[in-house]
């Protein structure tokens, strides 16, 4: 929408200055994390020193993080929990989303609404009774406490996104496959799923990110330091009382953000297509 005859001054105020402002606003905290994580303590805790620059970069905070804390353990825990809960949610979501979008059965619309409502239920509404449930199943302080509860917000999300995506795939493709000799399940697996790959990828990506980022269930259901996930470990184990190791904290925060940032940078296009969803040709 670059209108004809737009002057530079106008563009400066309507575009360049706002863009600059937003870039600083959105990205400065990440710069801050990074610069803090490589600053030696004498620069970090010196009010006189210019805070925006590092004069003697050091890796001591990173070394401390990986050697003297359980950070590596937390990273592996988070990875394991995220992958398994994403897999469970994605499979259940594909199945339920397919049924809701393609099959006629009694109670379909009621189930659709119910799933949509659970999608809107925030985890903070139920974490106290859920802790009781997890306790009753003897799962407290195990990865399974999270692997089984994360799907409560991941499944509704995956189901919702995927049923919308399946609806964009012409019904005739699978009808044709069924006439060609496929059972309903074969038609779903050989025809619909390959075509829904972009949708499945973005649902999986979202689910993984949401599990990776989850905080309150992990905070409540896990207690031993070795069981924790990155968000909980960094917040509760790296901050001891009033003593803050800001360098290592920021290194941990940065490192804990890298996987999700990487996923997004690879799939940012899928993210958009997954939400709009379209099959052509």
């Amino acid at each position, binding site marked *: *929408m*670059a*209108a004809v005859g737009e002057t530079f001054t106008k563009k400066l105020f*309507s*575009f360049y200055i*706002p*863009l600059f402002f*937003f870039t600083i606003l*959105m*990205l400065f*905290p*990440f710069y801050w994390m990074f610069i*803090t994580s490589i600053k030696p303590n004498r620069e970090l805790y010196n*009010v006189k020193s210019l*805070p*925006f620059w590092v004069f003697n970069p050091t890796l001591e905070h990173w070394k401390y993080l990986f050697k003297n804390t359980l950070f590596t353990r937390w990273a592996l825990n988070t990875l394991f929990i995220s992958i398994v809960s994403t897999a*469970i949610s994605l*499979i*259940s979501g594909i*199945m*339920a989303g397919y*049924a*809701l979008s393609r*099959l006629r*059965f009694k109670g379909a619309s009621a*189930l659709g609404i119910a799933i*949509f*409502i659970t999608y*809107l239920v*925030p985890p*903070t*509404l*139920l*974490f*106290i*009774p*859920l802790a*009781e*449930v997890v306790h009753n199943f003897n799962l407290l302080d195990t990865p399974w406490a999270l692997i089984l*509860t994360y799907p*409560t917000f991941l*499944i509704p999300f995956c189901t919702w996104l995927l049923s919308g995506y399946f609806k964009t795939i012409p019904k005739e493709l699978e009808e044709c496959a069924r006439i060609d000799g496929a059972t*309903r*399940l074969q038609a779903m697996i050989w025809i619909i799923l390959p075509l829904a790959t972009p949708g499945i990828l973005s649902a999986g990506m979202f689910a993984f990110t949401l599990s990776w980022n989850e*905080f*309150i269930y992990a*905070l409540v259901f896990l207690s031993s330091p070795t069981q924790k996930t*990155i*968000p909980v470990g*960094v*917040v509760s184990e790296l901050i001891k009382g009033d003593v*803050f190791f800001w360098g290592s904290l*920021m290194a941990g*925060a940065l490192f*804990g*953000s890298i996987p*999700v940032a990487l996923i*997004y940078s690879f799939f*940012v296009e899928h993210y958009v297509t997954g939400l*709009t969803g379209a099959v052509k040709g």
Partner: protein
Amino acid sequence: MKPNVKSVENQVEQVSDYADSKLTSMEYVGLAVKEIEEKKRDKLKSGYLERENILAYILVAPAVIILVLFIAYPFVLGVWLSLTDKTVGHEGSFVGLQNFRNILKSQIFLQTVQNTFVYTGVATVLKLVFGLALALVLNRQFKFKRLVRASMLLPWIIPTVLSTLAWLWMFDATFSVFNWILVHLGILKRGLVWLGDPHLAMVSVIIVNAWRGIPFFAISLLAGLQTIPPDLYEAADMDGAGSFAKFWHITLPMLMPVLLVVLIFSVIVTFADFQVVYVLTRGGPSNSTHLFATLAYQVALASGRLGEGAAISLFMFPFLLLVIIVQLWYIRREQ
């Protein structure tokens, strides 16, 4: 017309076909028996998975089981808990609405209700305004557009508690970078105690929540902007509309559907927020930033009063239900 000859021929053929197909009654019986057998076999061969409704129930079963076990059941359990005086390590007994009565009398709770509405209201307005502005900026053509768009998403996608930790450091009483800037620009003599003052603490948590939510608004609204057909703007140009008129009469009305969905979604998430406040202030100073979720956490897990904590959480329910009903009503109307 050509088909005439052909169809006459065909009819003759059909008549003879028909004569051939006359069967004796014995043959009919034989056919009927064969038919029944085939029907049985076909049913078996097709299997239950070919029956639309049976397959559907099998497919939704895993999702339903998990949701019933970990959403519906905990919800019922939560309601039950809120009616007991259960504490950690002590089986509670039924106390009726006592928890709710106690909570409503508590000064901290009333403060929390006020905090939550202020937090939700102000943060949502900020997210809306800045998110829309960012969407409009990102909708222009410029170099490195994709890179910029992708990087603007970062605050929303990375773990909230981790980015909030960076803000905690930026709000640090002694080493706050904001204070450094304000003092060095000569705006302030001495740095602010961002998280130590009740009002400033509320401002701080709102800023961080808005910062995290702006990209979500921006990206969703950007997707909405891109569905507006450009010829609408061209038509408005012809009609002599200025930038503001175009925004007001075309952009905003066309964005309305997506705007409402984003708004409702954001209100729910903000209303039930936990992480930002937990990391920055834990509800302090003097309860000035407690939200429902942080208060419930503190009562139930720090103090161990599970029944009362569950009751506090449940206070969120009527408001959330209202928002969900509005949302469902809106979706219905759109359809």
